[in-house]
């Protein structure tokens, strides 16, 4: 990893950590916006989700699955790109 990437990752970590140290409720912004809409006079949803995760645990299961699948593919792509480059360099070395 380059020095640049290293420091940028430190930056990302700080962006996540600082609000946690500062404290707060950390509810979802989506939910807050939804609360405003629900407070509108005469509002009613006209279509309900066809399936909802039965509990917070199941919801976090699917969120983790989503992140894991994505990370798997990104990691695979990075590894493949690296091995391809190594093969090319070996070939150049031999000829």
């Amino acid at each position, binding site marked *: *990893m*380059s020095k*640049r*990437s290293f420091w*940028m*990752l430190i*930056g*990302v970590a700080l*962006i*996540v950590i*600082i*609000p*946690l140290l*500062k*404290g*707060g*409720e*950390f*509810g*979802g*912004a*989506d939910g*807050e*916006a*939804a609360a*405003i*809409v629900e407070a*509108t*006079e005469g*509002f009613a*949803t*006209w*279509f*309900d*989700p*066809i*399936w*909802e*995760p039965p509990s917070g645990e199941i*919801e976090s299961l*699917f*969120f*983790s699955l*989503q*992140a894991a*699948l*994505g*990370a*798997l*593919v*990104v990691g695979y*792509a*990075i590894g*493949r*790109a*690296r091995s391809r*480059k190594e093969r090319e360099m070996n070939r150049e070395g031999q000829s």
Partner: protein
Amino acid sequence: MHIMEGFLPASHALGWTVLSAPFVVAGAVRIRNIVRERPEARLTLAASGAFAFVLSALKIPSVTGSCSHPTGTGLGAIVFGPSVMAVLGMIVLLFQALLLAHGGLTTLGANTFSMAVVGPWVAYGVWKLSGKIGLSFAVSVFLAAALGDLATYVFTTLQLALAYPDPVSGFVGAALKFGSIFAITQVPLAIAEGLLTVVVIEALSGKIRDEDRVAMLAGEGK
């Protein structure tokens, strides 16, 4: 930023779906062409979709004391142009609508338009503009991804304000109200997304000159 199931009036839901459709179709055609003509780019294409998958699953705390998530659509928009992200972003939204009850089928069109069309187009525009005025590779990628992320949330704000104008202060009042929730919360997250996008492009392209990274990932030349 996902507008929840059934939260937009039917006319709005339909309108956004109709507006998103051509972008998704154009994206599908573009993806088919990329896969056929540049097999080396397939891997990057998969990684672009996967990056959006990861980032939109991560709910991150913000300085406002609430949580939101990045979008991850800037990477693909920078490498392949914005149209491919209309398809990849919609797949992410569909996954979340069906399995997480996050977003929804009736609001899929509206959410696709903000996250998979507006965000990527802004990212692409900023990327091109930054290159033109001579900003470095890392700064250009950072600005493109961060502003694309932010644009998605600003657009969601406008969509909600359009559907639910404030009874007293109207559209502008409602936009300020929704904006105060979304936009400010999103600023630090957009910065994080900008940084992460630079890191991932660098990791995917390996040790080469900065100027060659994007072309190499897009499968254009060596």
